[in-house]
């Protein structure tokens, strides 16, 4: 089985770009990734991509060129990008292609998502009585966790403070201004215990990556970043997911726990080997819980980790070095690939002011509804 390398990475900045469609942002990212890899579109043998709200990725061929390549659309919610990467890596491992493009893009309207009960197979009363909001789910999962493991609100604030500090150092981020802890803690309460600055917002953006087989990477003389693991898992029984009118008394692990364990096993690595991590931070508490679900600390240890700044750049394990979803917003189709893009920059030593010194192993984790996680482990 051949090794798989990332040899090109391109991004269209996250945030709001009026007048440029999500699909166009995807094309811009794809061209940037091709140029970064030093290859041309006709060299690409297979492509995978997707968006949640900005159209079909395969229509990009109209702009990129009608080369006849197979271009598969991926629709996996927040894990769309991770699933596209997983698919492309497997296509290369299978010998189906030696050069693949992965692209994720999106453009969401302002404001929170507005789900309808029928689209989720749920009864109308669930939405009518005001219990069908994604922000509530995050707050409810978090509150249970905080009271079980002694996490305090200031720790949530510290996660957001770090995110905005890191975002200020990342040219592709949306929020580029640091926000102080007091402002975060005193901002409008949205769903207790989460304030406005502790939530990410839907946004826009695009990321593309060029993947190559080891032989192709050598032939091109590229400086590869190796894909040591690319894993996707769906939820096991007893996981706590969004829009659940009831939960089983017997609680189980999350899809993240399954994906993380599998990824470490495939890579032959452990959490202690990771130099930099990008973890799904839809809100501050998600980053806290995902630190434990991905095996980086025990439940409850986050309180000390954040107080001591261990997840800051320069700390023992920098987390979300480009500000994560909190600073970049969440264009669903692009978000997981942004994490991978950030790790590619870190492992190349090309992350500028936010560079983690000597980063060799990069870990990324994306989680989404209705209960799936994608984990990618990269090595320089």
């Amino acid at each position, binding site marked *: 089985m051949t090794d798989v390398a990332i040899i090109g990475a391109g991004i269209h900045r996250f945030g709001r770009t009026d007048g440029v469609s999500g699909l166009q942002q995807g094309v811009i990212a794809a061209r940037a990734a091709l140029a970064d890899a030093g290859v041309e579109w006709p060299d690409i043998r297979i492509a995978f991509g997707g968006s949640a709200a900005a159209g079909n990725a395969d229509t990009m061929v109209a702009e990129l060129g009608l080369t006849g390549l197979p271009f598969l659309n991926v629709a996996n919610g927040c894990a769309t990008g991770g699933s596209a990467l997983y698919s492309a890596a497997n296509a290369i491992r299978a010998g189906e292609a030696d050069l693949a493009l992965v692209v994720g893009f999106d453009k969401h309207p302002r404001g929170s998502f507005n789900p309808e009960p029928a689209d989720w197979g749920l009864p109308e009363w669930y*939405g009518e009585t005001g219990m069908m909001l994604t922000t509530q789910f995050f707050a409810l999962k978090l509150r249970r966790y905080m009271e079980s493991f002694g996490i305090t609100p200031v720790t949530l604030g510290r996660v957001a403070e770090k995110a905005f500090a890191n975002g200020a150092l990342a040219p592709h981020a949306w929020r580029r201004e640091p926000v102080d802890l007091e402002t975060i803690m005193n901002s409008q309460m949205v769903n207790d215990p989460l304030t406005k600055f502790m939530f990410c917002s839907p946004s826009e953006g695009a990321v593309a990556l060029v993947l190559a087989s080891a032989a192709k990477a050598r032939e091109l003389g590229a400086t590869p970043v190796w894909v040591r693991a690319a894993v996707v898992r769906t939820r096991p029984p007893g996981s706590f997911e969004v829009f659940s009118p*009831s939960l089983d008394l017997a609680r189980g692990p999350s899809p993240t726990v399954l994906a993380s364990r599998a990824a470490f096993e495939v890579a032959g690595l452990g959490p202690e080997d990771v130099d930099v991590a990008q973890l799904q931070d839809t809100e501050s508490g998600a980053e806290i819980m995902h630190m434990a679900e991905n095996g980086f600390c025990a439940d409850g240890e986050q309180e000390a980790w954040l107080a001591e700044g261990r997840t800051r750049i320069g700390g023992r394990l920098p987390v979300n070095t480009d500000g994560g979803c909190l600073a970049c917003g969440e264009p669903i189709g692009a978000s997981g690939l942004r994490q991978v893009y950030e790790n590619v920059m870190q492992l190349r030593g090309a992350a500028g002011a936010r560079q983690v010194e000597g980063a060799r192993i990069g870990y990324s984790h994306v989680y989404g509804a209705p209960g799936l996680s994608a984990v990618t482990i990269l090595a320089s």
Partner: protein
Amino acid sequence: MADAATLPPIAEGLFDLGPPPALIGGRDRRSGRIVFPCPADHDRFEPVRLPREGRIWSWTVQRFPPKSPPYAGPVETPFRPFALGYVELPGAVIVESRLEGFAFEALKVGLPCTLRLLPFGDRLTYAFGPSDEEEQPQ
């Protein structure tokens, strides 16, 4: 609750009016697993009355008006925040519910609570409130 009892329920098969009222869950006839609400497939799921007393498993406060549709609650300016959460019903299941009658500052995981029915617009819905209240404040 005399007035409320004459209101139509927000959904059929969601709760039993009693007295005393109870939520209706569905017991999987094969595995014994209980879910709420009871799915329509009664060949597989047997409707069962759920315990009326439970404990708060998690909670939050909805501080901004949910988008409508689907939200069909009262349109008030300014919006009146409401509490909701999950309630653990011993030996049965954990259900999501509005939490009524609690001071927001008093909400806590593990707090005992009891089912009540209450008007929601011109229909009847369910919520959990403090267990130590004899009469429900309507």
